[in-house]
């Protein structure tokens, strides 16, 4: 089966610009999560979708971050406008039962 796909793998943008990250989960996985790792710190939870609904978005840093999951399939995470502190690696994961599968991540650099 195909794994979790994230793109782009890398993105370098200027402060104030907009970036959209995409995640394609494993087909049939209702649960989709976004996580972020900033500057070698711990990986932190951002939000959780069940199908197309946001189950928990308590980890979203602020209202510059907007996540969507169209039709319960792929998900996007938009950062607008990007700030320097948004730099980091953004991971997506999908889950069925206790089996999480992570994507390779998107490394975002804001300059």
């Amino acid at each position, binding site marked *: 089966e195909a794994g*979790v796909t*994230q793109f782009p793998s890398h993105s370098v943008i200027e402060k104030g610009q907009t970036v959209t990250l995409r995640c394609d989960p494993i087909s049939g996985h209702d*649960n989709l*999560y976004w*996580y972020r790792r900033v500057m*070698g*710190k*711990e*990986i*932190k*939870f951002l939000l*959780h979708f*069940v199908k197309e609904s946001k*189950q*928990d978005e308590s980890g979203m840093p602020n209202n510059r971050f907007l996540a969507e999951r169209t039709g319960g399939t792929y998900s996007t995470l938009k950062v607008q406008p990007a700030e320097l502190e948004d730099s980091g690696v953004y*991971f997506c*994961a999908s*889950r069925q039962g*206790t*089996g*999480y*599968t*992570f*994507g*390779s*991540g998107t490394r975002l650099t804001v300059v």
Partner: protein
Amino acid sequence: AQSVTQLDSQVPVFEEAPVELRCNYSSSVSVYLFWYVQYPNQGLQLLLKYLSGSTLVESINGFEAEFNKSQTSFHLRKPSVHISDTAEYFCAVTIISGSARQLTFGSGTQLTVLP
């Protein structure tokens, strides 16, 4: 809320030596426990997990971890490491009850195997 502490941020070890990567967690409710590995330029891969049953769990590449409820620990061990084990290792927990199952991670341990 849960928390995970990985006491060592960097662990250098010579090839064929044993290694232990430490993980302690804090939670007021029962949890599942995981170890993930991130090889250079790759994503997170599940190494092993403890859900229930035997407290000793093993991975296919020779790692093992033991769940110790009294000490709230889930240390990862390997009796003889290889150069290819060089990677960053993350301990994580999730609560058993409910359906959210978000993971709480430790800060990671960089294992470097030296020739």
